[in-house]
């Protein structure tokens, strides 16, 4: 049985993830203005308009329409963990 790399051997058509850095700048600089689609109910709106719960072991952002968890930011002291299972996509406007 062949694994996927045998079926589709790696070629030179790709860069490594470093090349994303510049393209992601806009997301990193002001994520709260990004338009977010909830993976649960499909409704969209700016992250800034979602419901943030902070009296918890982490910061939990919920969809204002269905209250499903969009993302969770946890502070582990020496590092932060961002989980985004509840986000289908984020859209940012070009400056």
């Amino acid at each position, binding site marked *: 049985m062949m694994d996927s790399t045998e079926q589709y051997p790696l070629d030179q058509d790709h860069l490594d993830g470093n090349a994303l850095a510049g393209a992601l700048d806009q997301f990193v600089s002001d994520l709260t203005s990004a338009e977010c689609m909830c993976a649960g109910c499909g409704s969209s709106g700016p992250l800034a308009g979602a419901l943030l*719960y902070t*009296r*918890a*072991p*982490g910061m*939990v952002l*919920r969809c204002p329409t269905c*209250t*499903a*968890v969009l993302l*969770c930011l*946890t502070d*582990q*002291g020496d590092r932060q*963990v961002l*989980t985004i*299972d509840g986000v289908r996509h984020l859209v940012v406007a070009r400056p």
Partner: protein
Amino acid sequence: MAIPTSGFTGRRKNRDANLPPGQYLTDSFPVLSAGPTPHVLPADWTFRVDAGPGQTHQWNWEQLQALPQEDVTRDIHCVTHWSKFGTTWRGVSLDTLFEDVESEAEYTMVHSYGGYTTNVPLDDLLDGKAWIVHEFDGEPLAPAHGGPARLLVPHLYFWKSAKWVNGIRLMEQDLPGFWETNGYNMYGDPWREERYW
């Protein structure tokens, strides 16, 4: 020169011995919540143990109250660093609720109204280590603290003591619940300071 008495230092030593590493003591009872508080009426409340196909055990509020009740006094330790000593609860031991449950499963997922989940090994719920509690400090458990009923598993960090509990599903393998998916430890022993991944 006055010779210090052993009174205060002795008491402090005992207190510190009961405080896990990285914790501070509080007399208040902070309310932590990752989402909106479900308001479940006792008349609408149910609790189920799901041990696989055809192996579901369910109780309503009246049936829970009819089971043997235990008064429990325990220290509790929140992963956000506060601890509270000598909290008093009333409820039903998980040993009672699991009496007729037969399963080879070693792990559980605890489920709550509102969608919260947390994983706890089955051994940590049995042998007098966990309860479904419905009273705190002699009063019905307030919704902000998990009422009408919450899990109490005080030897683990308090996020494992799921508020608004409505069921426990047995699992053959250990899978993460809500906080365990979002950066927190799969087990959560406060004495080993098992806070994060």
